[in-house]
């Protein structure tokens, strides 16, 4: 962020704290989000690297690091099960709500979306700032919860009651934290939708929007409509914990030999419904912006238009819509009848189709391209097969008959990490490498980037591929020590392999962290405002973009990916360029109809 200071063009000076701390500029807020989120990603990953020790070498003291922790959590360096559960729950929560969503939506969305639509800022800059700071508070609450008596939340990121209701104080903090995070996302999503609908530059009809903007737009609707039910559920779980209500507590509970003193009459499954009503759309919130980033970078680096732009757009809109009615595939094993389970299996199968189409379109975009293997492109290219593995392994989970064996095993962990880690995280890395020059005026180092890429790719697979087999063997997730079971002991070797890969993956990130900070000060300066020779509007601004973004309000004359247009003088025509004397409307485009939203 400090780097950002140099690039400012110094008109109407604001005091430091208004410019960089309580800023209302979408770019500053975007960077604040991104940096905070990167910190959390690293933190969440560190939690996981600790857990991986216990998984690989159950019950053995953790060398060196183990001694840093209190005797409550790690007596003689050995992790206790409570602490393992805390780390697991917080890893999930932090990665999803404090890492990926803030980076993908808060960071990239805030920074790039207004630029790509040619807007001077977000529609509600103050709200935008509020959204960041509410997020920040949520993050602080989450972190602080590690220090309350008996530690942080330990009932999984899903916080299923009754367990979560009878859990120690950390859970209450988790709930307050979630309330803050959800509120922040809501504020953000209102802003994104209004900005996209109301503030597109002249000529930028909906079907000329970059794919990334579409992805963010659909994502915003998911955040807007899926998050409130969890907020309500969170409030109810808080009531259960604080006011002693029984929303999620059935009658007749006997905990550790004591009849529980609650009125009863609640339903534990109700929580699961409300949670997954949020959390399934949420997983698409994790993937859609990633797909958007990949779309941008693939088009840019193949030097040809994305294959089937409209199909892609329809696919993500459909994906967003469907994601609201598949949630119960997380609940197949709760005793669901045939009719309902068939309904949810069918919707789950249906929702996989648009993903297939999107991936197909990306792959077809390569055909006939002139592919530049830049660092961002490498990450995107890896995204495609990695997401495919993650997506394909979703299919056996989506059918009850196979989920019967695979539910809540490491196979599930493998499935979704393939989509979120070598999938989303790779796309986010790609986005950082890609937009870094816009934000800082300097390129990131290529050699370090390539090292980062290849090591990450290898070790990511080393972490998650073994999990598929561990899960197939039947090993449950959230298991402190799988050697307790004969079939777990059998595959312990694979688990150890995962762990070693995870630690190596951690080391591989050093390339990135060094590159990130080094390039900020010492990276090669960009020679033009458009170092990737891209078409979209964010490259039409000065570098870094000043407050207010554009020198002159851009006027858009064409679609987003006009690369290698036959007969054009260069292999790309920016969206706002009006060369060849052409001013407007090369093809007959219907007037923008904002009504066809998700």
């Amino acid at each position, binding site marked *: 962020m400090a780097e950002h200071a140099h690039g400012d063009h110094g008109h109407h000076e604001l005091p430091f704290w208004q410019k960089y701390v309580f800023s209302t500029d979408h770019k500053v807020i975007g960077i604040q989000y991104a940096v905070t989120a990167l910190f959390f990603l690293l933190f969440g990953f560190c939690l996981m690297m600790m857990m991986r020790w216990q998984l690989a070498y159950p019950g053995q003291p953790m060398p060196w690091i183990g001694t840093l922790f209190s005797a409550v959590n790690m007596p003689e360096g050995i992790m206790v099960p409570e602490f393992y559960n805390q780390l697991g729950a917080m890893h999930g929560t932090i990665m999803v709500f404090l890492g990926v969503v803030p980076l993908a939506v808060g960071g990239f969305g805030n920074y790039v979306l207004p630029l790509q639509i040619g807007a001077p800022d977000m529609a509600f800059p103050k709200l935008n700032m509020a959204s960041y700071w509410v997020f920040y508070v949520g993050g602080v609450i989450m972190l602080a919860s590690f220090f309350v008596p008996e530690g942080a939340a330990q009932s999984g990121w899903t916080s299923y009651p009754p367990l979560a209701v009878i859990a120690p104080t950390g859970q209450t903090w988790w709930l307050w934290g979630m309330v803050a995070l959800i509120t922040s996302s809501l504020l953000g999503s209102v802003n994104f939708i209004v900005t996209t609908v109301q503030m597109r530059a002249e000529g930028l009809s909906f079907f000329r929007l970059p794919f990334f903007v579409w992805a963010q737009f659909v994502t915003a609707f998911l955040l807007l409509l899926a998050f409130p039910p969890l907020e309500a559920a969170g409030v109810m779980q808080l009531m259960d914990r604080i006011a002693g209500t029984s929303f999620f507590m059935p009658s*007749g509970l006997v905990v550790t030999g004591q009849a529980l003193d609650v009125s009863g009459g609640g339903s534990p499954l109700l929580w699961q419904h409300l949670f997954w009503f949020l959390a399934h759309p949420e997983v698409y919130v994790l993937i859609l912006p990633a797909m958007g980033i990949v779309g941008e970078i693939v088009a840019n680096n193949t030097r040809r238009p994305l294959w089937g732009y409209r199909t892609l757009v329809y696919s993500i809109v459909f994906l967003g819509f469907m994601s609201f009615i598949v949630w119960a595939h997380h609940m197949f094993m709760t005793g*669901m009848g045939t009719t309902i389970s068939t309904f949810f299996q069918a919707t789950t199968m249906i929702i996989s189709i648009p993903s297939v189409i999107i991936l197909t379109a990306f792959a077809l975009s390569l055909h006939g391209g002139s592919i530049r293997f830049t660092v961002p492109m490498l990450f995107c290219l890896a995204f495609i097969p990695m997401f495919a593995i993650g997506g394909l392994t979703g299919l056996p989970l989506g059918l009850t008959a196979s989920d019967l064996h695979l539910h809540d095993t490491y196979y599930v962990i493998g499935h979704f990490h393939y989509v979120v880690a070598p999938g989303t995280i790779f796309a986010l890395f790609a986005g950082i490498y890609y937009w870094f020059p816009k934000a800082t005026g300097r390129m990131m180092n290529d050699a370090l980037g390539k090292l980062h890429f290849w090591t990450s790719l290898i070790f990511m697979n080393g972490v998650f591929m073994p999990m598929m087999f561990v899960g197939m063997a039947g090993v449950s997730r959230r298991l402190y020590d799988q050697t307790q079971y004969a079939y777990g002991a059998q595959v312990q070797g694979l688990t150890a392999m995962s762990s070693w890969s995870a630690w190596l993956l951690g080391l591989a990130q050093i390339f990135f962290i060094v590159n990130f900070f080094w390039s900020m000060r010492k990276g090669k300066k960009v020679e033009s405002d458009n170092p990737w020779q891209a078409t979209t509007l964010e490259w039409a601004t000065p570098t870094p973009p000043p407050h207010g973004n554009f020198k002159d309000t851009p006027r858009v004359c064409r679609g987003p990916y006009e690369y290698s247009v036959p007969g054009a003088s260069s292999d790309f025509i920016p969206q706002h360029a009006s060369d060849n004397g052409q001013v407007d409307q090369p093809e007959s485009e219907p007037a923008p109809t904002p009504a066809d*939203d998700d």
Partner: protein
Amino acid sequence: MAESAEEIRKHVRVYILVFAALAVLTVVTVGVSYLKIESVAATVLIALFIASIKGGLVAGYFMHLVSEKQIIFWVLALTVVFFAALMLLPSVTEFSGVGELEGQV
């Protein structure tokens, strides 16, 4: 939305009418509830029906939905779809499941 003062004055008359209607309907709801209708379904339906009319009046006139722009409708239509899913599916799932709710341990 540059409405003339004259139009606004017309609006005001509508607001007063709506207010009256809402007041009357409130009395009706309460009144009906004292009738102690046997069928639970009927009671619920009547109550919800009246509430919907009242809600419709508020949304339609106070919130100007009757003359609102398309885009607002699209947003609301979408919301209504998911609202319906949220209202129906959890209960349907729970009560068509194979489990029986039991007081027993």
